[in-house]
């Protein structure tokens, strides 16, 4: 099978393009997706190809255009709403939680909201306190929506189409640090399942559970651990809501040790939920307390050394893994 060299950014763009070509109900809407080409250049060139109706620039009105995406989905379209970054999504949260997430249930199943809401997330670009949130795990608290965190080229390329087939709202969080990630992708890469976590590396001594931007740091940590003769298994959650308990527990029952790596602020992050579930479902199989490597609970500061200190890094992951092994 032939492969092409590509980037995460291009993979997302290819996914959007394909969706637009395959289904005329699909359109992209958000701030600067058109004339500007997307704040992270994801949609560059699409305006020229598809025109202003379907690559729809919006004013700075997060609540209304997210709500408009919800309404358009109910009206038969398949909108992809781009909320530039998660930092601005708080302005649209009422529409997401009180409308998109509730309507199917509270209408007794009469109406569904097949909208996809994409946004960039994460710290690491020295953008300081108001532009560095990692809230995807926090959004995963909300019933009635699905939350995805593509961390690989395959998932960046393949999750969107599957999400668009979903009759319910799907939020896709793209870690901004990944856009430049290069790699090879099968020429015929296409839709992927969005129901399962993936074991990205096998190992039998400790399970490292992560998602999104932290996957690559965690894989690096697993590599470092291997050099120290510790075989770590790495799970990429992929879907943050609903969580794939089966994959997590199967691994933890095998390794008997787990560390969760989560770029969210520690307290109340998704890592807490995963730890609680492991306790509930695999307590008797554990040989050590479940560990967590999360962001420090601080508005992310601008200087690189402080930002680096605030978010999970490879040495911290390695250390946490070693601790579960008493080393």
């Amino acid at each position, binding site marked *: 099978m032939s492969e092409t060299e590509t980037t995460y950014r291009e993979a997302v763009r290819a996914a959007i393009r394909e969706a637009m070509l395959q289904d005329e109900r699909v359109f992209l809407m958000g701030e600067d997706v058109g004339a500007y080409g997307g704040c992270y250049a994801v949609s560059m060139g699409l305006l020229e190809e598809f025109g202003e*109706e379907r690559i729809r620039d919006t004013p700075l009105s997060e*609540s*209304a*255009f997210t709500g408009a995406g919800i309404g358009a989905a109910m009206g038969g379209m398949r909108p992809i709403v781009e909320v530039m970054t998660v930092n601005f999504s708080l302005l649209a949260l009422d529409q997401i939680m009180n409308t998109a997430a509730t309507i199917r*249930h509270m209408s*007794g*199943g009469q109406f569904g909201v097949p909208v996809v809401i994409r946004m960039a997330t994460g710290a690491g670009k020295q953008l300081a306190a108001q532009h560095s949130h990692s809230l995807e795990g926090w959004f995963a608290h909300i019933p009635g929506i*699905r939350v995805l965190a593509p961390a690989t080229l395959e998932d960046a390329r393949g999750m969107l189409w599957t999400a668009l087939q979903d*009759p319910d709202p799907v939020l896709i969080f793209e870690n901004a640090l990944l856009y430049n990630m290069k790699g090879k992708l099968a020429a015929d890469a296409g839709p992927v399942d969005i*129901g399962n976590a993936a074991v990205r590396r096998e190992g039998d001594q400790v399970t490292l559970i992560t998602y999104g931007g932290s996957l690559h740091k965690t894989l690096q940590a697993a590599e470092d651990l291997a050099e120290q003769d510790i075989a770590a298994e790495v799970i990429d959650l992929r879907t943050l809501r609903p969580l794939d308990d089966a994959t997590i527990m199967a691994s933890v029952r095998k390794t008997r040790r787990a560390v969760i790596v989560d770029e969210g602020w520690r307290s109340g992050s998704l890592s807490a939920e995963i730890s609680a579930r492991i306790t509930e479902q695999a307590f008797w199989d554990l040989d050590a307390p479940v560990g967590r490597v999360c962001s420090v609970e601080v508005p992310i500061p601008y200087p690189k050394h402080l930002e680096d200190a605030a978010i999970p890094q490879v040495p911290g992951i390695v250390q946490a893994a070693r601790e579960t092994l008493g080393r």
Partner: protein
Amino acid sequence: MTEPRQSPHPRVSREHVLHLLTQMIRIRRFEEKCAELYTQEKIRGFLHLYIGEEAVATGVMEAVEPDDAIVATYREHGHAIVRGIPMTKIMAEMYGKQEGCSRGRGGSMHIFDAETRFYGGNAIVGGGLPLAIGLALADKMQKRSRVTVCFFGEGAAAEGEFHESLNLAALWKLPVLFVCENNRYAMGTALDRSESETDIHKKAASYRIEARAVDGMNVVDVEAAAREAVAAVRESGAPRFLECRTYRFRAHSMFDAQLYRDKAEVEAMREQGPIKRLTEWATGTHFIHDDDLERIEAQVAREVDDAVAFAEAGTWEPIQDLTRDVMAEGPEAVQ
């Protein structure tokens, strides 16, 4: 109410007057029954009555087609009734029975009905406006000439979503009719205590949306204004804004001591009540007669009784269905 009191348009047929009156009385009697059922604890939660404002939903709904869409608020029983959702299903919803139009899950504030394109029953003030924008956008993109009518109170005009939504509607030229039901109070907050510009329809100018105010206590005027506006929206594809000046005779909800307004004000407004006014005019001119009224009342009383009987006979959704429809299930769903 600075608007001069106008008399109903003389060129409406007897049948139409009877029809409008019937619609308003259906709302009125339904809600009076709801208030009673609330004290009996058959209906629980919040109950926001539309009594006094019937002319607005009644008049506007005359102007819309079956495949137009309606977006309303938590004060939406009237809209649901005149939109044509069977009163039985609405009453069952008020009870929380699964025969209700939202399977009983929504209650008073969340009436939904796919058949009549009734998109709620939205209980976050201002929250329905973006939804309406989206429905209209879908119509526009799919080149359907449908209109979306979005009702909201004057209190909602202070919300950011009002501003964002009106701009989007005008900027993108979307077929939305915004209907502001200005009943002068948002809970206990009088309009001049919440808006620096109290002429709500003037705000539409900020978005270059054509707007007008109409006497919302006069159903004939409302209908005429709505017909004109809906036709313009359908014709041009662009939004319009209609402010209906009306008044709520009852408390905001069932938990309201009404400390914020004088009884005399309420009494004065009751004198101009939409049902009273239409009745007085139409009987005064011998356009309709006492026996017409009696017939309507009897017929509506039966409809309300039937609705109550239907709701009483309704069943509770089994607890094991609690999580049904949080997400789609079955063939629709994605794994």
